[in-house]
């Protein structure tokens, strides 16, 4: 139909917030729609192109048997597959159930859990199919999302830093909460990308963007103790939207007692 690259946006187990970030690009949305053929984006359009797709953005985690089948089909239909958000890259907040049993959590919510079709665990897309790029965040950052799409369109590698939130606080001129105000903060072990919003609002980073590259979560324990954090506080803080990301789920043992 057109020679424009075909874009697809898929949703698995998630809150819709990351794909909403695409619709929230109010100034760029129509220009983007001129550059790509939005072939499959169910939240935005009832026109459904059957594939194959040049770029698939995948939101959400794999949490049901049907998801497992569907992500394999999406992978087969997609030249490039980019996962967006904490659910797709780390299993999401719903991966907190991975630390307990499905039976226990299902029984707490539903009177007849046997009617549900759920997997024991909520896992990232990369646990099921090869992924070309992971974009982190809960939600992903709009500018980073546009950067990924723009880079794809011009055939270059996207610039997505893997350093920690601390770098963004310095760039923004935010005084270090952990050092200067004794506020427990996950910034030193968390990937940059949000723009260091939380410290700018006077609260410690709570890890939405998951582990920074080469984050050593265990090393944060003593720093937290120095500012008066209690045993278990770090572990609890890491048990958030990126709880199942390896560096967060293993790192918490140091503080677990």
């Amino acid at each position, binding site marked *: 139909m057109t020679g424009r690259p075909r874009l697809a946006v898929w949703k698995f*187990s998630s809150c*819709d917030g990351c794909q909403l970030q695409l619709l929230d690009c109010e100034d760029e949305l129509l220009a983007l729609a001129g550059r790509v053929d939005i072939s499959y984006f169910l939240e935005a359009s009832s026109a459904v192109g059957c594939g194959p797709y040049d770029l698939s953005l995948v939101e959400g985690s794999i949490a049901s048997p049907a998801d497992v089948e569907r992500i394999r089909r999406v992978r087969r239909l997609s030249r490039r597959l980019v996962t967006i958000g904490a659910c797709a890259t780390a299993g999401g907040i719903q991966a907190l159930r991975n630390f307990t049993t499905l039976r226990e959590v299902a029984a707490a919510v539903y009177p007849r859990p046997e*009617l549900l079709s759920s997997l024991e665990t909520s896992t990232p897309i990369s646990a099921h199919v090869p992924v070309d790029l992971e974009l982190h965040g809960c939600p992903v950052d709009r500018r980073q999302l546009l950067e990924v799409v723009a880079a794809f369109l011009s055939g270059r590698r996207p610039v997505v830093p893997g350093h920690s939130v601390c770098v963004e606080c310095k760039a923004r001129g935010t005084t270090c909460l952990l050092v200067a105000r004794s506020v427990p903060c996950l910034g030193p072990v968390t990937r940059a990308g949000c723009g260091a919003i939380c410290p700018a609002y006077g*609260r410690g980073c709570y890890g939405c963007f998951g582990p920074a590259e080469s984050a050593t979560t265990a090393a944060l324990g003593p720093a937290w103790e120095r500012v008066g954090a209690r045993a278990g506080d770090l572990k609890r803080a890491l048990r958030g939207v990126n709880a199942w990301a390896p560096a967060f789920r293993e790192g918490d043992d140091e503080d677990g007692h």
Partner: protein
Amino acid sequence: MRMGTENRTIRVGDIARVEGEGALRVRVRGGRVERVELDVFEPPRYFEALLRGRTYLEPVDITARICGICPVAYQLTAAQAIEAACGVVVDGPIRDLRRLLYCGEWIQSHALHVYLLHAPDFLGCDSVVEVARDHPEVVRRGLRLKKAGNRLMEVVGGRAVHPVNPRVGGFHRAPDRRSLADLIDPLEEAREDALATVRWAAGLDFPDLEVDAELVALRAPGEYAIDRGRVVSSGGLDLPPDRFGEHFTESQVPHSTALVSTLGGRTYLVGPLARYSLGSDRLLPEARAAAREAGLGPTCRNPFRSIVVRSLELLQACSEALTILRGYRPPEPSFVEVRPRAGEGSACTEAPRGLLYHRYRLDEEGRIVTATIVPPTSQNQLAIEADLRRLVERGLDLPDADLAHLCERGVRNHDPCISCAAHFLRLDVDRGPAS
């Protein structure tokens, strides 16, 4: 009547322009609609279970993740329910700032639904991109409105999706006067755009349909209820939020991962139609005038016209936001200290899609013993099914594709957020064996 129109099966896969995953199954036998089921097969995420054992300060960040479109609704309902459990009422300037943030969410969510999700149905388009080809000015107006809502959320909340600033007791940091003053001009423009939206929406074509379900919404003295109020209904119900659980019951149906909610066994509807019909007298004078101009009476039960009501609520939210912005002085401190204690607390607020209820039971250290969350879409499931039944009954002589399209519109009228309710609507009409 020809055989085969009496008994038939229609399938529509993947209802678009809704937030989430679900399906619709309709069974027609002997020319009668036997069964209508709205299936929600968004994989369950078990929030209420995952909240157990967490501290009382955590649900604000955790429950935001139920919905990327209306995180503030979850954050503020959770915060207020926990405050109630701890015997704290947050009022004054902190409450104004909360209401301002909530107005931002109404503006972005309603602009999203009115322009990006709902408008294509009235203009015969598949998507906003297609609408933009024929009506670029309309789409630009919608995007400006949405951006104004998002900016409000970014300044007050830190970011538009999953704001970081709200907390139990108030806010981590109150924005300074200057940054809120900078929002006045864009909000003035948004108010003009909202008024233009009401006038534009009023001129669309609306199929006839009347909701006969009981309408349920919050009502508050002297204001259009958003962040608090009593639970009232068109059937005369009038309760404080902590008695919600006595009257509304959730049950599980085999075809859905959403729990289905009823009011004393009856079907009821929450959302814009209910809010307007139970509270149009509480709208600001300019919104009331715009409603009259748009041809609405004091109540509105036509779900297709919900686009007009959402437009009015856009106007209401822009005007309220402006009032708060103009009178703003940063609350000092930015939050009320809330000390945990053993107890139970409930709160209801009006999420853009309708009434949202949270209840928490805490132990003496403030750990969550149980959590109950009733989102708008699970409350609307039966009322949406009832709408669809009537649409199918009237449209039985339509070709399958047209009937399916009408049903999809019937679902989108209610802006269901299936991610909240548990996503993905498929329509499957079974008209029996064709002969």
